[in-house]
Each structure stands twice: as structure tokens, then as C-alpha cells.
């Protein structure tokens, strides 16, 4: 017995036989007339329609099966089954490659965070740290909040991202600002130490603790005044105010989104209404004045 005989009929023959059988079966099924009839022997309308639709479906299926049983179609089908695993593997590989590339990109970016800020070093802790963090955030982290959003909820998601971004910027600015405000305290303590040392050497140390407090508050006031007039303080104050305003505006936009679903007017609607009332009142006043003059 040859090897082929042992293997039985080949796949192509088996499939062709299957399609032929199926075609014959559906062809006969479609032609069978077992339609229900009404009292007059006429088929019921609703049932008639469904039977017709069924018959049409059977015919289509029969045609499809017949076509598929042709040798050329069978060749094509069998080729497809051969190449399908290849296609799937390619698609999967591409997807995974893209995914891993994205992962790698993100990891690389996170790894690079801080490398752009070479000019600052963490050994100068305190203010430099805050400024460095601020710069890192602005240049490296912030972009993730600006990734474009898609779909029906994209605008809402974008506004949430924006608010988170602005909150982060405001928090950072506020931290820098508060740090600046802390500086006069540190400096005044240092100066007090020096002053006490000096007074100790000269033997003029005050006996009353209130005198030390008065000395300190005066030094502190002086340091605050110097700080407040510095360009750095003014810049930081301006940035903090800007960041606060940006955050409040972004938060306001989210609130607007939330309010849309509630039966309350939005800020924009109220603003328009207030302006209208204001202009109307103004007009009435000027008319009243003109009228009283007449």
C-alpha cells in the first residue's frame, strides 16, 4: 500500500465533496414548499414574507457553495489557509514591536528626565531643587498631558489633562514662591547669631528677652523689604499669579462641563446675562436723566 493510499483522500477532494453536499442540501431545502396556509388555503402574509426571505438566503448560500466547489476557488481558499498564520504572525509582530517601541520611548524619556537641566545641580538643594523640578516638569513631563485625545470624550479628557497640567505648574510655582518667602527667616536667624556673637564679645548682651525679639523682627523686616524689591521675587510672584490664574481657568472649564448636565446656568451664560442687564440699566439711567432735563 502506497503512502498516499494510507493518507486517504486529499484535503482538496474532501472539501469539494463537502461543498457539493451542502449545495445540494440547501438547494433542495430552498425549493421545498411546506408553506402554512390560512383558511382559504392562501399562505399567511407574515409567514409568507419570512419564507421568501429564507428561500432567498438559501439560494445565495447554494450559489456560494457551488462557486466555492469550483477547483479554482478551492485553490484560492487553500492558499489562504496556508498563508493565514503568516499574516497573523506579521500583524502580531508589528503590533508588539510598536508597543515595545512606545514603551522603550517612554522609558527612555523618563530616563532622560533631568538630563536637560545640566546647568543646575542637586547639590545646591533648596531653591535650585525646586527650580530644577519646575524645569523638568515643563520640559519633560508636561508633554504627556498634551498627548492628543480621540473619540467622543476627547474634549472633556483634554480639559481634565489641561487642569492637571496647570495644577502641577501652579503647585511648583507656589513651592518656589513659598521657598523665597522662607529665605528672610533663614537669613535673619543667621544675622541674629552674628549679632549675638558680636554683642557677646563687646559685653553688651541685653538682659531682656524682648530686646532680642525686637532685634530679630527688625532684621527680618529689612530682609523682607530687600527681597520684595528684588527682580527675582517679582518674577516669581508674577509666575505664581499667572499659574494660579491658569489653573483656575482650567478648573473652571471642567466645572462648566460638569454643570452642563445639571439644570443650572453656566458662568458664560450668567456673564452674558449680567452684561445685558448692566447695559440695559445704563441705557435706562441715561434716558431717565435726559427725560428729567426736559
Amino acid at each position, binding site marked *: 500500500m502506497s503512502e498516499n493510499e494510507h493518507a486517504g483522500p486529499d484535503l482538496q477532494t474532501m472539501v469539494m465533496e463537502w461543498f457539493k453536499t451542502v449545495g445540494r442540501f440547501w438547494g433542495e431545502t430552498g425549493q421545498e414548499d411546506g408553506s402554512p396556509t390560512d383558511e382559504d388555503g392562501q399562505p399567511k402574509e407574515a409567514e409568507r414574507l419570512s419564507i421568501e426571505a429564507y428561500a432567498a438566503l438559501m439560494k445565495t448560500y447554494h450559489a456560494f457553495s457551488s462557486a466555492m466547489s469550483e477547483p479554482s476557488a478551492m485553490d484560492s481558499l487553500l492558499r489562504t489557509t496556508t498563508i493565514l498564520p503568516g499574516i497573523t504572525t506579521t500583524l502580531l509582530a508589528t503590533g508588539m514591536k510598536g508597543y515595545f517601541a512606545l514603551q522603550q520611548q517612554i522609558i527612555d524619556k523618563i530616563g532622560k528626565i533631568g538630563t536637560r537641566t545640566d546647568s543646575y545641580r542637586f547639590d545646591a538643594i533648596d531653591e535650585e531643587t525646586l527650580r530644577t523640578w519646575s524645569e523638568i516638569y515643563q520640559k519633560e513631563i508636561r508633554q504627556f498631558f498634551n498627548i492628543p485625545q480621540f473619540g467622543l470624550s476627547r474634549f472633556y479628557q483634554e480639559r481634565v489633562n489641561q487642569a492637571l497640567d496647570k495644577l502641577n505648574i501652579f503647585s511648583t510655582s507656589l513651592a518656589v514662591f513659598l521657598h523665597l*518667602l522662607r529665605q*528672610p527667616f533663614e537669613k535673619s536667624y543667621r544675622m541674629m547669631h552674628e549679632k549675638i556673637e558680636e554683642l*557677646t*564679645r563687646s*559685653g553688651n*548682651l541685653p*538682659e*531682656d*528677652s524682648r530686646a532680642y*525679639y525686637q532685634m530679630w*523682627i527688625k532684621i*527680618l*523686616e529689612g530682609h*523682607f*523689604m530687600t527681597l*520684595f*524689591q528684588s527682580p527675582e521675587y*517679582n518674577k516669581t*510672584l*508674577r509666575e505664581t*499669579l*499667572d499659574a494660579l*490664574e491658569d489653573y*483656575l*481657568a482650567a478648573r*473652571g472649564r471642567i466645572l462648566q462641563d460638569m454643570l452642563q448636565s445639571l439644570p443650572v446656568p453656566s458662568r458664560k451664560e*450668567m*456673564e452674558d446675562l*449680567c*452684561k445685558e*442687564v*448692566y447695559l440695559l440699566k*445704563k441705557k435706562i*439711567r441715561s434716558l431717565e436723566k435726559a427725560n428729567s432735563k426736559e
Partner: protein
Amino acid sequence: MEKPKIPVDMILKHLAEQAEVHQIRVQKATDVLLSDLETEIAATPYEVVYEEDRVKLKHYRAVHGAEQTMKTPLLVVYALINRETMLDLQPQRSVVKNFLANGINLYMVDWGYPTYKDKFLTIDDHVNGYMDDMVNFVMEREKVEQINLMGICMGGTFCVIYSALHPHKIKNLVTTVCPTNFDTRQGLLHIWMKWLDVDKMIDTFGNMPGDLMNFGFLLLNPARLMIDKYIGFLENMDNKPFVENFVRMEKWIFDSPDVPGETFRQFIKDLYQKNLLIENRLVIGGRHVDLGKVTMPMLNIYAQYDHLVPPEAAAKITDVVGSRDTENVCLDTGHIGIYVSSKTQKEFAPKIINWLKEHEGRYEQAGQDHTENAPDRVHPPAKNISPGVKRSEEPNHAGKKGLFFNDLQGKQGIRKHT
């Protein structure tokens, strides 16, 4: 025996004494803080005689027994920042009581608490709207053709603008700690306002929040306003009158209405940033605010240690107004102390009262026409003004400084700088 370099024994002795004092103070303070404290502010009786939107006009009842010696009523216009209750903070230190006791017929503007709907109100609405309506009301009620006008801080700026736009309605003008020259770096406020992005701020907030402004004011001197002040309280908290006055002041200082957005925007841009008023270039409600038309007698009081309106921001106005009868008075105190400190109680209110009394009826006798349409304004001869007023022979500053007062150039001015 040589004096020790560190008198440890004395320092320790003082510390021990102070600890004892503090302990007694805390015990007494508990009693004080738990007792009935009289912390009411603005207790002088008044009647609301006019109301328009959020704005009210108060008329104070004459003090029993005090003769109303002045025919011309005085309208006091407070700033839009904080409240006019400051003039009547404590019974013993009340400018209002002082005025009433000296026969002044007193009206005062209460700007109220602006809400979101007021955000569109401009300086024009406040000056040519509310203020003008109230001035007209007082004139009609009192059956007079002119009133005396007194402005406080930002309210003073409003009064200067009003007097320039409606000079015929104002007999005498008093400005106190009033910012008019914004081109100065004397006060931190002036430095900060120069770079403030007011458009963004108002677009975000609508109205300028009072609490945010208060925070800004505290930041002007945190050592004194956020530390020393409360240390002072701790040291005196067993003293009932001190505690009562402290609470009154706290009540006033943190009672901060918001400022209508558009008014704040205009005030910062046109005044703080462009300094248009003193440069005689300000336009309000489409009308040029010509300081040359401020021809009525003017008393300008400011404070030497004012950190909000430093002398440089307040003093210059008398040089540029059209009036020949101007007087600058600088008091040895701060922005708030001018109204509430016990020291200035003896100087501030009496100065205004005496000045107003001196000027009551003066120009009527001299036959001067103060109306804005008067073609030839006749300035009274110096000898008729006041025996106490110093006569200056300097040429008018307006011409010297290249301002726009063509009609005033070369005139003789009577200016007193105290």
C-alpha cells in the same frame, strides 16, 4: 569687679520673671477672652437715606447737644477696598463722632459688597453714576447748590476725578491718603502693579477678590503684619480694652469686599500703569478729566510712613490742580494710623474740621464763581483766605511742569505744606 561678658545670671533671672508674668497674663487673658467683649464697629447711629443697587448713602444723626455749625454738608467717599466702617472703628477714636461733635452735617457712601453682576461697572459708573446721583440727592435734600467732598484713598482719587468733571457741585475738596501720582517706586504696591497682568486677572476672577487683595497687603510687610502684630496681641491679651480694639481692627481689616472687575482693570491700567490722572490725560466715560478744572479749595492730607500711598504718590496733586487755594498736610503716621491712632485723632479730624470751617462761605463772600463754565475765574486775594495760610509767591507749578493748564500759567498760588 569686671562686668561679665554674658550676664547669664541676669538673663536667667529675667526669663524666670517673664515666665511668671506670662503665666499670670494667660490666666487673666482667659477671663478676658471668655468675658463679654465690646467689639462692635460703626456704632454711631445713622440713617440710610438713599440706595442704588448695592450702594447706600448714610446720613449720620447730629450728636445731641452739638450745634450744626456748618451749612454745607460733607460727603465722605471711601475706597472700594475695605469698608468705610474704619472711620468709626471705636467710640474713642471715631472720625465720624469727631465730625458730628463739631457740627458737620455728615453723609457717607457705603459701596456695599459687589457681586458677580457688578463686574462690568467701570470708574465712570462709580463717579458719574453713583457718586453724581448721591451728590445730587444731598444737594436736593439739604437745599444747597454745592457740597463739601472728602475722599479716602481710592475714594479720594474718585473725588478728584469727580471734582474735575463736576466742579460746580463741589465747594471744598478734602483728599486723605489719596493716590494720584502713580509714577513712583516708593511703595511696593506701585512696583508690583506695574507688571501686573490685570487683564488676565480680571478675565479669570471676574471681580478682584477682596481676600486676594488682603493677602497682597499682608505681603507688603509680613514681619509686622503677620508676626509682630500678633506678638503684640499675645503681650496684651490680658488687657480688655486692648483686646476689644484689636478685635475691632481685625474685623475691619478682613472685611474686604471684592472690587468690580472693570473698575479694577481701569484703575490699574490707566492709573497705576499709565499714570494718566496726574498727567492730565485721563478720560472717564468719554470725558477728559481736566485737573485744571479742580478750582475749589483743596486740602490734601497724607501720611509720612504710608506703605500703600507713600508721600510721593499723594503730595503732587496740589501742584497740578487748577485751584490756587491748596494745602498739603503730612502726618507722622501710616495709612491706617491716620484715622485710628490716638495720636493723630488730635490732628487729623480737627485739621479737617477747622479747614472746612475756615472755608465755609469764604468764596461766596468773595463773589467767586466756581462753575466749570465760568469764563474768568477770580481767585481770592491771599489776604482774605486765612490768617494762618502761608502765601506763596512762587509761580504756578502747572506752567513750570509743562502741564496743560494754559489758563493757569503764571498765576500766584497759595499753597501750604505742613
